[in-house]
């Protein structure tokens, strides 16, 4: 459960990486992603992947859950990676069921796999370990449009309410003997269910708006958290910038 107000003070036991200024963590994660996408050399990308793994270890992310998330991302791109050697023109290295696989395609596939995994791991380590509300407030401080930040914060707050509503409606349907099948009645009923949830969500949003107005809401949410750059933040920012600049120089200048 997240709270609309969080104290902003995280308990001291958290690893140093998670005590970095949230704004810095978001900017670092984005910079890391941009750098990783710009690199093409497989050896440099391997270094990026290693750094991402180190960041994950430094952030002390729960191992099982993190692996699950990374695998979830990999399952999206696995098909593309598997087909790439066969769809790209180039020097054939082997044939499978009469289809030639190209060396260039294989290299490209490895490059994409390395980039994607490095980016996802760095994101999880830097931005993913953050409290959702902190994330929203940090985005606000980074001048992300207030409407987008509000959307994010309200989604976090109400997604569980919607899930509960869906669950109760489904229970009530079950109570009246509903068992989904492949027929018009099932499609119609699910249509009604989705439609009713949309209408309720609309009405709920109006009620929330009214309740917020009653408490003096004028379009800006008070952002309660204070962020400040401390010594360690500056050191981290400098080190990270130097590392990424070096990577880019190696790729493009040397």
């Amino acid at each position, binding site marked *: 459960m997240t709270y609309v107000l969080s104290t902003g003070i995280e308990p001291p036991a958290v690893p140093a990486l998670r005590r970095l200024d949230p704004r810095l963590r978001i900017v670092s994660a984005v910079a890391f992603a941009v750098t990783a996408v710009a690199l093409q050399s497989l050896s440099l990308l391997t270094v990026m992947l290693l750094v991402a793994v180190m960041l994950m270890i430094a952030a002390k992310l729960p191992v099982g859950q993190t692996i699950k998330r990374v695998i979830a991302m990999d399952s999206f791109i696995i098909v593309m990676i598997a087909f790439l050697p066969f769809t790209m023109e180039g020097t054939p290295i082997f044939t499978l069921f009469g289809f030639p696989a190209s060396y260039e395609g294989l290299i490209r596939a490895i490059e994409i796999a390395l980039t994607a995994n490095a980016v996802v791991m760095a994101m999880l380590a830097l931005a993913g370990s953050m409290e959702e509300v902190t994330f929203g407030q940090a985005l606000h401080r980074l001048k992300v449009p207030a409407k987008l930040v509000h959307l994010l914060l309200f989604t976090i707050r109400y997604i569980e309410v919607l899930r509960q*509503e869906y669950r*109760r*409606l489904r*229970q*009530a*349907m*079950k*109570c*009246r*003997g*509903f*068992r989904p099948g492949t027929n018009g*009645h099932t499609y119609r*009923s699910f249509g*009604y*269910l989705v*439609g*009713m949830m949309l*209408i*309720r969500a609309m*009405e709920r949003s109006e009620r929330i708006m009214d309740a917020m107005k009653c408490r003096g809401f004028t379009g800006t949410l008070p952002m309660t958290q204070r962020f400040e750059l401390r010594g360690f933040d500056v050191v981290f920012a400098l080190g990270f910038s130097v590392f990424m600049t070096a990577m880019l120089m190696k790729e493009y200048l040397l």
Partner: protein
Amino acid sequence: MNLFHLENIHHAWPRRGPVLSGASLALKAGDRLAITGHNGAGKSTLLKIMLGLITPDQGSVEAFGQKRQAEADFHDVRRRAGLVFQDADDQLFCPTVADDIAFGPLNLGKSRDEAAAIVDQLLTRLDLMYLRDAITHRLSGGEKRLVTLACVLAMEPEVLLLDEPSNALDEENEARLTDILHTLPQSIVLISHDASFRAKVANRCLHLKEGQLVDAPVSA
């Protein structure tokens, strides 16, 4: 014969601890049983266990003369025992009142014509014909309550499980609900915090305390 027989039911919520710890209950034909207990005592949980929507940690559920354990065992129970939810909005999800009432009969395999006939017959009997084509989410609180009752009655259940049906009803609608309940032949399990409503509807009462059901006077 018992319509329902629950024996030594235990149930605990993750993080919230036990709600039911050895609750037992027997419901006979003709019973109009009220269940009382403070907020969060586990009354709604008990009704959901009777219909297999929640599986208890321990204890046995017997309904209509048979032990019920697996999800499939409860399909028949849900048809023969109709639950009216605490929040009417949890139940109404179709665009119009007629659609919503027809939903149950259609699930039971009736044709659209047969379902429409049931809708008309039921609405006439409950004197709600004027709501037939009304949009469900625009009904008043009292109308919603009566319509959810109609939705459940459309399945012709043998037992009615009512979870705080008089909640948020004005006097007029409450009197109307009481009248309707008096004309119904079904056995009833009623959860209600309203003592005068219980006295009008129930002929037996159980009090849920510390996870167990104990006999209590109907009007306390």
